[in-house]
């Protein structure tokens, strides 16, 4: 406990009957022991600790320096105007129970409101609010306010289980600890608030970006999001299905950083998709999103581009609200899509946003990006865009393209701004189609889309493509519906063209069953009517339907 003999003889603090308010004291010349103790409080390695560790370590050193039984730090919560127990030694239950002391009341409350040190020689005769102090058997208390640049941060107090006369030196040591602790606490609080915001923003950002991209027949898609080095921003990309098998592709960039930008990004992404799903064209969609931004209570600004792609034809309509122009790469003529952008969203209300139409040849890729990817101090944007076109122009794989863009364009030292990138390719059409599907009805429309696309590629006209697709879909439906037990299973659709004749083979692992009822008979009728030849082969290993149709008489 008290090691009076080894300590500098201390002048006692003035003691009142209850508690005494003390003026600040000068630390008197200290012997080596005290230098060591003081140094232990000023140890620079303390600064590297997170708040909780920092406080624990500091309190341990105060406890040792003053040979006290209890040490506690209560932090000032501005919102509730209360002191909240944050760290303690010998008084852990104070923190565990989350003790809160109103400013101005009791021992700690008065230290905080009057911003003075208070010494209580005998707890029994003092105005103590916190019952834990009494329950713990504390006899004497000494506490001081923690103040940084005139602002109250909290209260630090020490206690003794035996009656104790705290001296001037005790107070001075406590003051050194307080001076040491207060800025550290403030910095740690700011840091942890900042880190907290960063964490929240990061989680928010991730939750707002699509978890996985839509898989659709005839397209390959890739996307990347790279946060800035120090905080998240408001970049986003999106892709969703529209009716008729068309795809919506969006990208955007909310001006600003942090939680607010990330939250706004989420709103804009949702708004854009909602308008798009309502059937609005790209230009109209952006006009509506602009109105949405205008109606937000706080001023906000963002750029965005939105495109609708028809994978069956490769036709794509693009509109931009202040966003950088997309690229078309991977084909014979890599190019920047020359569009006339409307003003950024939120800049001012506008009634029109023009659209640009282009066609992606099979193999070509449309690339949207945000300015973080190419903005470099001192280099004109057009020059950066040309450089990116040069870099990505020959890329025929979406994955490679995304990888290359991030690897080559994101500086090693990190980004000042976040980056979003989305690329969608009108996939090359293979000469021979080989598809495998789970035997579930939902795959039928996908199978039809893939087949239609292929049929046009091999020269079928519109009517031929429609009839052949119908026959193939009936054969696939047959494989799904009748060839299986309810256990999971798969089937394949194989299509090839030779000498003006298309051959389709639908193969499954189930047993052929004679058509049941009017409905199945009708499916077979359709197959026979649409194709020149239909044959069904069944074996113990499965069933295959082979159908042929000449495209030219």
């Amino acid at each position: 406990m008290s090691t009076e003999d080894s300590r500098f003889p201390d002048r006692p603090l003035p003691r009142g009957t209850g508690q005494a308010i003390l003026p600040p004291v000068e630390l008197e010349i200290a012997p080596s022991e005290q230098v060591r103790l003081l140094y232990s409080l000023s140890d620079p390695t303390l600064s590297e600790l997170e708040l909780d560790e920092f406080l624990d370590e500091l309190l341990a050193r105060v406890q040792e320096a003053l040979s006290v039984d209890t040490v506690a730090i209560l932090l000032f919560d501005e919102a509730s105007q209360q002191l909240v127990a944050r760290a303690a030694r010998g008084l852990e239950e104070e923190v565990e129970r989350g003790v809160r002391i109103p400013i101005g009341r009791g021992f700690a409350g008065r230290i905080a409101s009057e911003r003075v040190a208070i010494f209580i020689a005998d707890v029994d005769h003092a105005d103590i609010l916190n019952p834990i102090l009494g329950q713990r058997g504390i006899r004497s208390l000494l506490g001081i306010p923690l103040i940084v640049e005139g602002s109250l941060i909290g209260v630090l107090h020490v206690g003794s289980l035996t009656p104790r006369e705290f001296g001037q030196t005790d107070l001075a040591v406590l003051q050194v600890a307080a001076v040491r602790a207060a800025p550290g606490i403030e910095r740690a609080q700011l840091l942890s608030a900042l880190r907290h915001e960063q964490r929240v923003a990061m989680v928010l950002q991730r939750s707002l970006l699509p978890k996985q991209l839509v898989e659709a027949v005839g397209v390959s898609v890739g996307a990347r999001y790279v946060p800035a080095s120090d905080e998240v921003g408001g970049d986003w990309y999106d892709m969703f299905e529209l009716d008729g098998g068309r795809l919506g592709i969006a990208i955007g960039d909310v001006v600003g950083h942090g939680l607010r930008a990330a939250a706004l990004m989420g709103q804009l992404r949702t708004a854009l998709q909602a308008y798009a799903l309502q059937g609005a064209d790209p230009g109209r969609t952006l006009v509506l999103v602009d109105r949405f931004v205008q109606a937000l209570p706080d001023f906000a600004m963002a750029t965005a581009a939105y495109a609708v792609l028809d994978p069956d034809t490769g036709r794509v309509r693009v509109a931009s609200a202040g966003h950088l122009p997309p690229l078309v790469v991977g084909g014979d003529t890599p190019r920047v899509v020359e569009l006339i952008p409307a003003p950024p969203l939120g800049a001012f209300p506008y009634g029109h946003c023009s659209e640009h139409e282009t066609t992606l040849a099979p193999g070509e890729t449309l690339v949207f990006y945000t300015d973080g990817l190419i903005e470099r101090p001192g280099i004109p944007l057009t020059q950066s865009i040309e450089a990116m076109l040069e870099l990505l122009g020959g890329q025929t794989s979406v994955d490679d393209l995304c990888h290359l863009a991030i690897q080559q364009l994101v500086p090693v030292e990190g980004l000042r701004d976040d980056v979003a990138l989305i690329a969608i390719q009108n996939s090359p059409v293979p000469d021979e189609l080989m598809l495998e599907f789970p035997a579930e009805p939902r795959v039928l429309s996908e199978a039809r889309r893939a087949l239609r696309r292929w049929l046009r590629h091999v020269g079928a006209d519109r009517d031929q493509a429609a009839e052949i697709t119908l026959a193939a879909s009936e054969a696939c439906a047959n494989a799904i519906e009748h060839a299986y037990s309810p256990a999971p299973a798969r089937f394949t659709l194989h299509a090839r063209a030779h000498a003006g004749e298309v051959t389709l083979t639908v193969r499954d692992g189930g047993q052929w069953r004679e058509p049941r009822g009017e409905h199945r008979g009708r499916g077979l009728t359709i197959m026979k009517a649409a194709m020149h030849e239909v044959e069904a082969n069944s074996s113990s290993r499965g069933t295959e339907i082979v159908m042929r149709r000449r495209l030219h008489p």
Partner: protein
Amino acid sequence: MNLGDVQFTRRAGMLVAELTGEIDLSNAESVGQAIAETTSNLDAGVVLDLSALRYLDSAGIQFMFRLREQLRTRGQSFALVIPAQSASNDALRLAGVTLHVETFETQRDALRSAAADRDDG
């Protein structure tokens, strides 16, 4: 996105069901059920409009026939609107359905015919 969709209006005492998108094995039953549930016994009958439908297969044809049977037992009429140039006409033509079922080019034709039948009856 829904593969296929159905929208209802009531005209001249008939429930008009307009189909859009694609109807196949994956959604034929639910679309058929939606139409059956929306038909009230106050409706004189149902006009099924396939003009805007992009795809129809044998599963869709089956639901149409089932619907026609359900309506007939309740004394309600059934009419199909299928323009000759519509996509769904393919399946009906190839399945031989158009030979056996009366179809109309437009909703107006179907509604007029239904009204005339009622006047006759």
